[in-house]
């Protein structure tokens, strides 16, 4: 399941944000620091995750540890979906 999540997230990032970046970003790189995602991007990302996975991202979950890189997102979603 983790791999499928990673692919979905990476595709969304590539499709929607990656054209902002000068170069490829790795799974571990901060999307904010590399300029891939900005504050409106975070909101778009949350909307996408909520729609795609039928989850609600709680206020306290909107933190870089969960959403600021592809690998952070993958582990956050894996945990979240396993708990659901």
């Amino acid at each position, binding site marked *: 399941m983790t791999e499928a999540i990673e692919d979905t997230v990476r595709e969304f990032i590539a499709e929607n944000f990656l054209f902002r970046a000068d170069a490829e970003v790795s799974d571990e790189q901060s999307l904010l620091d590399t300029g891939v995602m900005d*504050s409106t991007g975070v909101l778009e990302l949350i*909307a996408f995750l909520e729609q795609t996975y039928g989850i609600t991202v709680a206020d306290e979950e*909107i933190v870089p540890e969960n959403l600021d890189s592809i690998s952070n997102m993958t582990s956050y979603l894996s945990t979240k979906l396993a708990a659901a």
Partner: protein
Amino acid sequence: MRIEARLRDSVKRFAAKTALVVGDHHLTYVELDAFSDRLAHSLISHGVQHGDRVLMLLENGTEAVVSFFGIWKAGAVACPLHPSTKADKLATIIDSTDARLLITQARHRKAASAAVEKAISKPLLVVAQGEDSGVQCFEDMIAGAPDAPLPLFPDCNDLALLIHTSGSTGLPKGVMLSHVNIDAACTAIARYLKNSADDVVPSVLPLSHGYGITQMVTMASVGGTLVLEKSFAFPRKAMERLAEVRATGFPLVPAMAAMINGMTDLPPGSFPHLRYVTSAAAAMPPAFIQRLQQRLPQTDLFIMYGQTECLRATYLPPDELERRPLSVGKAIPGTRAFVVDEDGLPVPPGVVGELVIEGPHVMRGYWGDGLATMRALQPTAQGQRLRTGDLFSMDEDGFLYFISRSDDIIKTRGEKVSPQEVERALYALPGIKEAAVGGIDDPIFGQTIRAYVVLCEGAMLSERDIIRHCAGVLEDFMVPKSVEFRDALPRTPTGKIRLSADETRSTEQGNVA
């Protein structure tokens, strides 16, 4: 007084006090003074002369603050640009300002190099945080320069800032502000906010924007502490930072207020040190005001209005907020703000007219654009009157109310966006036959940008293709969030494409969750 002289005064009074915090990095007043002196020495030895323009393509950080003061100490004009400015526009600005030097950081080096390559003027490129050789390194300019304080330039009427903003023609206008202009605005702001050396002010506002720059200058002038943050993308983190640094003041734009209001787990009393928050850069809906006051019951909320052309024009004293939640208040101390008719004569209360501003904070004009300057500034007996282009009315007690803009500039995320500038970017994409751009009301960002496009026959462009193209040439905040394909666009009798208000309103509401 010149701005760097304000800094010198604070250095004398508050030497070892913290002037600037960026992440874990603290800079004292003495250090900020010394670093900016060293940069000034280096700038001068690299040929920067009195009155030269130095471009800054920098994110919020130590380098940006040191650059401002270093540039001023060298007698030059700081020209801060939004860090997401792309190469083509950057090249245009390099040439229009005939810049001597461009300071950027590794992340934006590619755009900066491409712009220098393309431009006719050849400014020296200085890169901060860079690791490669073959380019002038910002850190070397500071490390290799003498420590001796520079004598300050005497003339307060020298240009200090050139800030580029969206003009209604679609071409960026360079707003010229002198040291007197900035000092007048910031002294007035510090007075009504009662700023002092006890203040700690975190700011996520870009230092390419007047609202961000006034935070830096007011704090340096009163001996306070500026805490620079790059963004408000993770509101919870930003609010934790507020508590951690014991913030006493926090400047907001309405989009940030909306995000704070959405935080359901913010217990009242979370910020015992927070004396005030300010809101500017776009109109704050009254519902936001009410919720923000519930979230921050011990904090004063200052609603303010301004534009780059005078930095700050009005503020509403917090004790008037309940009675006049829709007002942006009155003129800041030492200035005048009033509503006039088409002949420039003051109108009675309740009548809508154009807001005009008079005082020592009014800009010197637009860089290299005498016509636009003539339209915006009118000479009066006391000096210059600034026409804001904003429609206002005034109540019986003299409080001012924003009605609308008199042009079609879009306000999104607190930034002004000219539809024409976005449309020009759209027309540069082969396959687009007609294009128009409008603002869609959005609960968080005020407005978001939507492009309306008619494709050439046989063109196969998707919404994604068009957004991707725009992201390659426009600053991030100017990039359309959505594209609507049409068979035709409405035109005025003269043939101009014109979206009516209904046109943009009848489409679905902004889709940002």
